[in-house]
């Protein structure tokens, strides 16, 4: 089975080449993909948690209920 290929454009000559990735490059791509996905998941989770806290803070304000410190942090800079 062949590895994926990449397009390389030589800016000096304008020559375009199609180059098969080495096994090491494929492994690096996979490692990069996993790491990036993990960081994105962390960011998404943090954003979701913040949105939940804001919604809770808003609901409590409307209802005249006390906020938790975490909820207040979403309102006060």
């Amino acid at each position, binding site marked *: 089975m062949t590895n994926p290929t990449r397009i390389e*454009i*030589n800016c000096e000559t304008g020559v375009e080449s199609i180059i098969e990735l080495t096994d090491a490059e494929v492994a690096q791509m996979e490692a990069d993909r996993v*790491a990036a996905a993990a960081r994105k998941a962390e960011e998404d989770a943090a954003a979701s948690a913040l949105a939940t806290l804001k919604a809770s803070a808003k609901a409590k304000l409307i209802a005249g209920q006390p906020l938790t410190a975490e909820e207040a942090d979403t309102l006060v800079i």
Partner: protein
Amino acid sequence: MANTMTLIEAKTLASSATSITFSSIPQTYTDLKLVTSARMSLNSTAYGLNFNGSTSGYSYKRLWGDGSTANSGQGSSLTIMEGILAVSQLSNTANTFGSAEIYIPNYTSGNNKSVSVDALMETNGTSAYTELYAGLWGNTAAITSILITPADSGSFVQYSTFYLYGIKNS
């Protein structure tokens, strides 16, 4: 203040491609500007940059929105300058392409290299990414090649375009 801007190379994909590399970049400009219009074959929302084949020293801070909330994130000690939210993905409106302008000042200098990115996903819907991104490659080598590679296992689809400009300030 830049007073010249020259197209170094342009590539429009005739068929899908895993990644694109601009190599042997001339060292005769002051700054580089990379402009992309891209769409992914899978539900993958980002691509990354790699300079000179180096797999170390990358970091970033970014602000991004998804249509409902504003978010921030950062990464350091990375093997690639990842997370540039500049592509439309499979689930987005057909035939839409995300776009980005990537500015790399002083790419031949002996200092670490900074990168600024203005990127967005394109789709006819309420949820789409837009991003401001500050990247750093902690390396003093002049940039001679740039690899643009998807953050996921997908490919850039046909008609994705990649333009590399050189900018001189004198």
